[in-house]
């Protein structure tokens, strides 16, 4: 099996510098490295301007990198852009739809561009419209649809075709929860069929739910790459512990404050704490507290992706560029 069959997307030391006439050069990608495995849903996370969209633009052959290499299905994006385009489909950030055409014509036109046999186009369009709840709008011109529906049409197009690699740039932005769910289900289903999906999103819960692996990107570099569990484990290993007592006594606070807590807050009956797993044994802490006052209820929750995201980006913001940790 060729290398690219295992990893349809391979990026090595990728640099992209935008040089405008009226501004200083901007380094959007700064030596980025990553590989995405076949059938994987890979999420790119990062704040605005981190380089996510630039990476998708390079991979979809819209722009050429300044240096480094990027390959899609074993084809170099600079040397063989046409071959690369034959193996991808992309949803870019904008509402890319044919506003003067109907929903059905949008899907049919897209199908033609992707060489779907004419007799199959209608069939696939019907199935995609059903999947995305677009049937009742089939003959409506897209210019008359709401922003959310336009976005739905745009995303639905991608599922008309069977390209091995799909790029989704904030695909669910502007969708209502029901259609967001349909989109996420469709993404999952297509990944199961072996398509490789590289997506960017600002909705971390979505990434957490959907992605097999995640890269957090900042200032054009990958700060961390891995699966969700691994990424969470690379954070401060913070846990939130909420303990409820029948009544809050000063001794409870005294006992808790002996531990190196990241956060300590109390209400009339509940103590809210954040602890670093490496520094505090949760069981020891609970045990100590239970000796002061019987515990009625407790909850321990691990760090969310959002916690890790904010922590990593906060650190990189304060300390400048962090080294790659993947």
């Amino acid at each position, binding site marked *: 099996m060729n290398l690219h069959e295992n990893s349809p997307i391979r990026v090595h030391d990728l640099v992209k510098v935008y040089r405008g006439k009226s501004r200083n050069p901007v380094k959007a990608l700064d030596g980025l490295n990553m590989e995405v495995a076949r059938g994987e849903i890979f999420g790119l996370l990062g704040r605005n301007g981190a380089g996510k969209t630039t990476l998708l*633009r390079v991979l*979809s*052959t*819209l*722009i*050429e990198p300044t240096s480094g290499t990027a390959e899609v299905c074993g084809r170099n994006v600079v040397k063989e852009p*046409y071959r690369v*385009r*034959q193996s*991808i*489909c*992309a*949803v*870019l*950030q*904008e*509402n*890319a*739809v*044919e*506003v*003067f*055409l109907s929903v059905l*014509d949008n899907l049919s*036109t897209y199908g*033609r*561009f*992707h*060489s779907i046999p004419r007799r199959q186009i209608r069939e696939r369009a019907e199935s995609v419209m059903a999947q995305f709840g677009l049937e009742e709008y089939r003959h409506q*011109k897209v210019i008359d649809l709401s922003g959310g529906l336009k976005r739905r049409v745009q995303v639905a197009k991608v599922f008309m075709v069977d390209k091995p690699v799909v*790029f989704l740039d904030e695909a669910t932005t502007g969708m209502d929860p029901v259609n967001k769910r349909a989109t996420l289900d469709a993404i999952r289903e297509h990944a199961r069929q072996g398509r490789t999906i590289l997506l960017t999103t600002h909705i971390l819960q979505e990434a957490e739910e959907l992605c097999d692996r995640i890269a957090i990107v900042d200032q054009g570099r990958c700060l961390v790459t891995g699966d969700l569990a691994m990424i969470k484990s690379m954070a401060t290993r913070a846990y939130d512990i909420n303990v409820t007592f029948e009544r809050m006594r000063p001794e409870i606070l005294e006992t808790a404050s002996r531990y190196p807590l990241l956060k300590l807050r109390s209400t009339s009956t509940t103590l809210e704490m954040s602890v670093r797993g490496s520094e505090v044994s949760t069981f020891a802490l609970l045990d100590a507290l239970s000796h002061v006052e019987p515990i009625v209820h407790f909850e321990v929750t691990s760090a969310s992706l959002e916690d890790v995201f904010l922590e990593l980006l906060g650190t990189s913001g304060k300390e400048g560029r962090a080294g790659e940790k993947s």
Partner: protein
Amino acid sequence: MKMILAVMYREYRIRTTSLTWLFYDMFMPLTYLLIFGIGFESAFAGGVAVAGDRMGYNAFFLAGVLSMASFGIAINTAYGFFVDRDNGIFYEFLTYPMTRSEFLVGKILFNSLLALVQAAITITLGAVLLGLALRWDLIGLVAFGQVLGTAGWFFFLTTFAIRIRRNDMFNTFLNVAYFVLMFGSSMFYPVESLPRWLQAVSFVNPLTWHTDVLRYATIGAGAAEVVALEGAAFLCFLAVSFALAVQTIRNPLRA
């Protein structure tokens, strides 16, 4: 070829969504000829002279209308890049499995077909309604001229439409280009009757070359060898414009 046909199909679907648009595309040049041409025919009852031959203004202006129609289609098509960019579809297009050349060629082939239909309507109805004496033996050259003319102007304007990001800037550019190129050419009046400085402008203006070829092909006006030279110059203009357009669209976000 499949991709070129897909681009043409898309252009066709968009055009046919508006009957007004379609009517404008098909009949506007004829309307121009019937109103503007007839007005000037009355104003210049003595006609105009080209290379020593006198002719009625309507006959003279027919080629001007045809080249104006080519130029107009090219402007509309180039302006379509702005519409596509505003709708976000332009960059998505460039990720479709086709080469940049196929994209441009598909667009221009459809619009050249449009220019041909437009020219057929204008010439046929112009001849019938205005009684113009045409060189029917050269009608193939007219068709050739319309296709290459539309292509040349489209490729020329594409470079600017992609490089200029602002709609208002592109509008200003178009207005200036439209004004200078059209009025500094042989479209409305014979170049010989212009002041020397304006003649100089006109001689280096590709719109003059295009119009003169069409004038020769429609009514046989002008010296064949000069027209042949102008035709060759226009082909060079087309080739350079095509190369620049492909180069520009190859890296559209850098442009």
